[in-house]
């Protein structure tokens, strides 16, 4: 049994002069305050990686800096899936009795801590050093390849995909912490400059500074009753060249395992948090998981199903596409928003009912997948 007992999230965007450790500390301070726990109550610390502070022992450095002496502590790396992978590990550690309260924390000054070219170059290194990187691809190019094939296979148009960018921007407009809050239209997305076809600027998430944290506990320590029901992973490939089947990148495998671990199913969920590095990422993940039929996720978005007032609200903070993406913390904002929704604290973004949620993260080029079901128990 484990519970998410506190969350913390900074605004995403520019945090001039703030370092990785500053942003991690900001988020961790918020999460601690939210939970009502004290530093001494935290006996586990998990963190991801920071491209602006590549360190062999980031979790230990952070713990020392923040003033915690945990009995379990390390960093893990699975790209964009890292946040949920840490959540899953925290759940397993707490359930096993190894620790009582795990602080999961991330932060990075990815936008202001380096030149834009440097960020793009660093990220492109998830490609194969001999067989892909020498061809000059970027992350958008890897996803552009995926998009070209997936859209070809399932009859999806660029205009349809643009609906996801519009939806995430609409959601972000109601969150003061979002990096981009100006509404956009399908026409705006279509007119934005090409990055790597078929993906245009507004199909791509931005590079951001920011920090996010959450605490996973063995016991209910406050009024929040958000239980982690179960999680699952799948890792079928790492490089896009070796992603064999566009209908099965691994999201369905991970979600199937999470269903088996949690006893929950898609029919039970009333809120969904899905990794949205690009508009195509949302289409593929929603469809492979089975929330939408093939080729229809964007049509559902257009029809309002994923809106704050829709049947299945999705990423109501604006997602990576508009709240922003600071690396490990990027998808942890999805976890924070899910918690706020489930505990009725989402303010103007509050959905009618969020009692059982599915969260899904992907890392690399749809390479590493983590799914998790959470439910409100009080």
């Amino acid at each position: 049994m484990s519970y998410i007992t506190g969350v913390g999230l900074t605004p995403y965007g520019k945090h001039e002069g703030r370092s990785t450790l500053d942003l991690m500390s900001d988020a961790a301070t918020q999460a601690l305050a939210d939970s009502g726990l004290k530093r001494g109550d935290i006996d586990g610390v998990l963190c991801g990686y920071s491209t602006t502070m590549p360190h062999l022992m980031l979790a230990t450095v952070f713990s020392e800096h923040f003033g915690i002496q945990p009995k379990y502590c390390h960093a893990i790396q699975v790209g964009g899936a890292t946040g949920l992978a840490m959540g899953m590990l925290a759940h397993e550690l707490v359930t096993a009795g190894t620790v009582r309260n795990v602080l999961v924390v991330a932060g990075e000054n990815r936008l202001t801590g380096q030149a834009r070219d440097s960020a793009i170059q660093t990220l492109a290194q998830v490609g194969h050093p001999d067989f892909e990187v020498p061809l000059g691809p970027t992350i958008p190019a890897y996803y552009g390849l995926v998009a070209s094939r997936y859209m070809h296979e399932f009859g999806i148009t660029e205009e349809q995909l643009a609906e996801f960018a519009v939806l995430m921007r609409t959601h972000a407009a109601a969150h003061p912490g979002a990096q981009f809050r100006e509404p956009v239209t399908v026409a705006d997305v279509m007119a934005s400059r090409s990055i790597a076809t078929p993906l245009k600027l507004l199909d791509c998430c931005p590079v951001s500074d920011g920090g996010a944290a959450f605490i996973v506990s063995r016991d209910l320590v406050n009024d929040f009753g958000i239980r982690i029901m179960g999680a699952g992973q799948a890792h079928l490939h790492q490089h896009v060249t070796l992603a064999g089947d566009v209908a099965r990148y691994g999201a369905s495998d991970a979600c199937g395992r999470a269903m088996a671990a949690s006893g929950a199913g898609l029919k039970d969920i009333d809120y969904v948090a899905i990794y949205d590095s690009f508009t195509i990422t949302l289409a593929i993940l929603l469809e492979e998981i089975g929330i939408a039929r093939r080729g229809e996720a964007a049509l559902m978005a257009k029809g309002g199903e994923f809106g704050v007032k829709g049947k299945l609200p999705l990423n109501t903070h604006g997602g990576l596409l508009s709240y922003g993406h600071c690396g490990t913390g990027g998808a942890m904002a999805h976890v924070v928003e899910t918690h706020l929704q489930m505990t009725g604290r989402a303010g103007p973004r509050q959905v009618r009912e969020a009692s059982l949620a599915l969260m899904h993260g992907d890392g690399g080029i749809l390479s590493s997948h983590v799914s998790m079901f959470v439910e409100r128990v009080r």
Partner: protein
Amino acid sequence: MSASPVADWTTGTETIAHQTCKACSHVWYFRRGFCPACGSDDVAARQATGEGTVFAISIVTRAATAEARAHVPYAVVLVDVKEGFRMMGHGDRGLKIGDRVKARFEKFTGHIVPYFVKA
């Protein structure tokens, strides 16, 4: 069990190499000293014809380095080659998914890369 060096485009020679397993007949592209399907280290290096079919294509207009920016827009393609593996290369920007292609070689940021054109 390290992969012995092979003369192919990744080491500056205008060929495309791949490997096959003598034990289970598996075919793969990313060089290594053993078969990723069965683990056997009885592997053979082979040359590919460079003929295949376009699986996916993306035209890059925002590159990450000054050297690559000199080449934009350039098309990155995934090609299913007839020997039975998928590879990444460059290609003509007008290529479409499903086009039959063959590889030439072109210079890109100071080294040679496979460049696919319609067969």
